[in-house]
């Protein structure tokens, strides 16, 4: 049997306040649906005949179905058959959790994720060892790489059909585990954990740098946007090396007093290049729990305030190497080129797995 | 000082004077500046028939082109009126009320009453009315009766440049929503108009001609047809009193009743369709309130109950003319008061 690919497309990512405070982009529903259709075409071209999709009520599904029906009426079958996960739709992040778990249970070969860092985090929390292929449709996206989705679809198709060997096709990724009160609450972050003084979740997005205090990142990349950029501009840490970086940020008082070491102009959100006072930073080795210094505030995961905590709460952060797998799109496509996987075949590539 | 200007110029002058007098007066509408954002001239049109030409140069951004979006900008004018501005919104052709009527009759008309007297909506909606422009069924209607039916809006329809200026100034100063109907075939008509500002009060009909034999009541363009009919009747020694209602809501019943009580005969001329028209309204009111004075049945001369046709030969038949009015007057004078039912009714 040909491998089944899961698709989780979040209809509501990139709707937050950064559209007002920072002119962030907003990808329309029809564009998201068109991305799904492009991925489907790429998967089919690689021999994937069935996909399992998360149902949603945001409008993606209807548009995708129209595309499929129209292609069929045209006499083409460029798309795999679409199956929907049998689950209720709540319109909340719980849908993503449930869909990822269901896909894992169904034994999908990979999950293509359309969303921002938050959506990817939600999938990773429940997909176990199933590799994911990320496509950015969010705002503050450090985790999914920016790339034409057709290529992501091709790479995924080549990977799941075994045309690209697993050691090349999949890459290991780090994450940070957040533990509150010894396990009363567990959360994860794929890229960064920021501790901020605001103790309300509010509109979630992080944009008031004066409230930032501590920052923990799995990788520090000066080419991405958001918290990771702050770390990346101090000391780059690659996705594939062990451990991350921990950065302490200055309070407004420290900045005013001039006692913070560095003022960094960091692209913390689309269009927002903001001075951030940095006190110091150091490497964050894998497997070592870190306890934040601030006693009360909110924990932002991958750029969004998620949890508020007070002095009574015990918070610890631990970075894990090799925590989950992703499709190595660049690696797959380079392998495909070297081995002429997409050359000379007059018909869709036969499935070999 | 008075000088001869056209009704189009008189309207332009009224807007100019009021915008100069009162900074809360703004003017908006489709193409009223004309050319906003286009590569050519600014103020290229100054209104689709040039009524607002030149005002943009004097008043700048207080003259606003709008998107083709009547519901939004008529509503915005109404909303702004409740917030202290005195907007004059041009609906271009009154036929376009179909796409914004809610804002006029459910919103503007009702605010004062619905909010217990606590809201004022000093908005003016200018719109061209009337047939004879070879513009057919959707650009030629006389929809004054529809607005007159709605409590809370006032309805004005001047017949000449002097009245247009004074009534428009009154409309802008009035604290109720006013539908200001401009007959497009009167735009070029000139008469003596003072250069100064003046306001003609609402509900004050104009008696254009004294006469003791028959009363002819009309408004807008057909006032001129009524005057022509009166001149023709005078040759037969029939003296017609011609009343120009000027405003339809409020309406000057006293002048109509006074006249009918002297003449005993009434012809009502209305360019609208006959059913539920200004003509039927006046006829009914006189029937109820001056029945004893009537010496003959009231005659209505209206457009027929059909859409405005395009072909000039048909459109000319559609519009009430002087001969029909004179005939109607003669019918009231005929020994037997009854007359054949008109095909229009």
């Amino acid at each position, binding site marked *: 049997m040909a491998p089944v690919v899961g698709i989780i497309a979040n209809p509501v990512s990139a709707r937050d306040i950064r559209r007002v405070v920072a002119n962030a982009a907003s990808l329309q529903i029809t564009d998201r649906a068109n991305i799904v259709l492009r991925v489907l075409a790429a998967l089919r071209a690689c021999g994937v005949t069935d996909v399992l999709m998360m149902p949603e009520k945001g409008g993606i599904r209807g548009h995708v179905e129209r595309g499929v029906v129209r292609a069929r009426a045209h006499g083409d079958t460029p798309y795999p058959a679409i199956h929907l996960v049998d689950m209720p739709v709540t319109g909340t992040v719980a849908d993503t959790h449930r869909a990822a778990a269901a896909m894992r249970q169904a034994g999908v070969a990979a999950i293509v994720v359309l969303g921002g860092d938050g959506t990817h985090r939600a999938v990773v929390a429940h997909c176990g060892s199933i590799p994911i292929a990320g496509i950015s449709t969010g705002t503050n996206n450090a985790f999914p790489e920016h790339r034409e989705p057709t290529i992501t679809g091709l790479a995924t198709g080549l990977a799941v059909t075994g045309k690209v060997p697993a050691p090349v096709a999949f890459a290991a990724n780090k994450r940070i585990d957040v533990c509150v009160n010894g396990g009363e609450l567990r959360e994860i972050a794929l890229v960064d954990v920021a501790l901020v003084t605001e103790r309300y979740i509010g509109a979630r997005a992080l944009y008031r740098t004066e409230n930032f205090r501590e920052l923990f990142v799995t990788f520090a990349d000066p080419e991405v946007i958001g918290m990771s950029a702050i770390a990346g501009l101090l000391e780059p840490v690659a996705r594939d090396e062990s451990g991350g970086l921990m950065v302490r940020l200055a309070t407004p008082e420290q900045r005013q007093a001039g006692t913070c070491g560095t003022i960094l102009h960091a692209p913390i959100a689309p269009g927002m290049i903001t001075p951030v006072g940095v006190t110091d930073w150091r490497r964050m080795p894998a497997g070592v729990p870190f306890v934040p210094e601030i006693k009360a505030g909110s924990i932002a995961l991958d750029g969004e305030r998620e949890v508020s905590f007070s002095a009574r709460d015990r918070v610890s952060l631990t970075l894990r190497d090799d925590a989950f797998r992703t499709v190595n799109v660049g690696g797959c496509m380079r392998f495909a080129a070297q081995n002429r996987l997409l050359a000379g075949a007059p018909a869709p590539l036969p499935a070999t797995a | *000082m008075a000088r001869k200007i056209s009704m189009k110029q008189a309207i332009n002058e009224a807007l100019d004077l009021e915008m100069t007098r009162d900074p809360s007066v703004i003017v908006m509408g489709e193409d009223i500046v004309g050319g906003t954002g286009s590569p050519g001239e600014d103020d290229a049109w100054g209104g689709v028939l040039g009524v607002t030409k030149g005002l943009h140069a004097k008043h700048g951004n207080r003259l606003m082109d709008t998107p083709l979006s009547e519901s939004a900008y008529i509503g915005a004018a109404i909303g702004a009126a409740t917030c202290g501005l005195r907007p004059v919104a041009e609906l271009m052709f009154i036929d376009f009320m179909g796409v914004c009527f809610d804002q006029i009759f459910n919103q503007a008309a009702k605010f004062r009453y619905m909010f217990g007297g606590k809201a004022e909506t000093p908005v003016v909606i200018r719109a061209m009315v009337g047939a004879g422009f070879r513009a057919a069924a959707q650009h030629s209607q006389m929809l004054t009766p529809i607005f007159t039916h709605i409590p809370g809006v006032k309805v004005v329809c001047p017949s000449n440049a002097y009245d247009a200026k004074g009534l428009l100034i009154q409309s802008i100063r009035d604290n109720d929503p006013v539908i200001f109907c401009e007959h497009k075939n009167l735009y070029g008509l000139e008469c003596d108009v003072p250069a100064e500002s003046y306001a003609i009060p609402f509900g*004050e009909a104009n008696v254009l001609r004294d006469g003791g034999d028959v009363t002819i009541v009309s408004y807008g363009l057909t006032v001129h047809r009524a005057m022509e009919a009166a001149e023709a009747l005078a040759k037969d020694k029939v003296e017609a009193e011609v009343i120009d209602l000027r405003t339809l809501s409020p309406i000057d019943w006293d002048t109509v009743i006074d006249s009918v009580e002297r003449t005993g005969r009434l012809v009502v001329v209305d360019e609208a369709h006959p059913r539920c028209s200004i003509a039927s309204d006046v006829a009914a009111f006189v029937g109820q309130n001056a029945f004893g004075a009537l010496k003959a049945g009231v005659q209505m001369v209206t457009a027929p109950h059909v859409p405005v046709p395009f072909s000039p030969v048909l459109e000319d038949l559609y519009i009430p003319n002087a001969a029909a009015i004179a005939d109607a007057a003669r019918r009231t004078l005929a020994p037997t008061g009854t007359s054949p039912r008109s095909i229009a009714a």
Partner: protein
Amino acid sequence: MQTDRIKPIVMPKWGLSMSEGKITGWLKQPGSTVNVGDDLLEVETDKITNVVEAGDAGTLRRVLAEPGNVYPVKSLIAVLADPDVPDAEVDAFVAGFAVPKGDDEEGGEDAGPQYLFADTPAGTLRYAKRGDGGPTVLLVHGFGGDLDNWLFTIDALAEKATVYALDLPGHGQSTKAIADPSLAGLSAALLGFMDTVGIGSAHLVGHSMGGAVSMRTALDAPDRVDSLALIASAGLGREINQAYIQGFVAATGRRDLKPVLEQLFADTSLVSRQLVEDLLKYKRLDGVDGALRALSGALFANGEQASVLGGDVAAAGKPTLVVWGKEDRIIPAAHATALGSNARTEVIPNAGHMVQMEAAGTVNALLKEHIGRG
């Protein structure tokens, strides 16, 4: 040809805008004897219907204009001559009659501006100027009036005088703002006007409130005033018809204004639709309501006139003519005698407050004589 024995009767020109008139009826039959001041015929214009009085005596030898027809101003409508003038001579006169050219400096019927405007310290004031040479006469209208109140007067006086008529501030087509609505303020505006148009001194002819303004001017600037002619004048007693003043100020429509205006005339039929409409057009102008309220408040508050100047004027000794309509319902004709022997006083029967219009011929003759003496 002995044309001095033959007197033409022409279509009168009443007011600057009149170009033609309609004969509504002859009051004298051909062949009847006519004395000066007799009612000859009725003429209707778009403004007013009025009686044409005889300016000469004689026998009505020819009636050329038919009732119901319209004739241009100054065209020959009838001929007066003594009974002994032969018919042939009368016919020759008629055949040879040429409509005289306009005698004003504009040189023609419609050639020049009918109205002029002067920028004075009291604002822009509209005025008319007719005639040339001879004494200078300045006509001053009353409360709510304008220079057209002298419709039947100005051309008659202009035959032998240079006649000015102005719109006071707040009136006619002059500036509507009145800086000082007192008699002194209006008098200052009048003097400012005289300065602006270059009138050193003038015979002041004032009607109603204009009479009081003229008196005030004669007292404040005696060397600028050659004589006074006071027609139904204010300033000669306390009484005034308060209902008229209030009604005039308050009226906004034809139906309420017409009965007010009817009080101005002995013959109420003179209040035509057009007269009412013209006054409404004036009253609707921005600023007029405020001006009238300011004036009535300053001059006629509490039902009486604020200023009585008769004693001072009598003492000043200017040649003064007082004319009144016996039927005046605005200011009682009894005020006519206020100056006693210091003035010539004429009370004209069958005329109301607008006596200069209702009995134009008589009043014009009195004015001509008064000015001629001065």
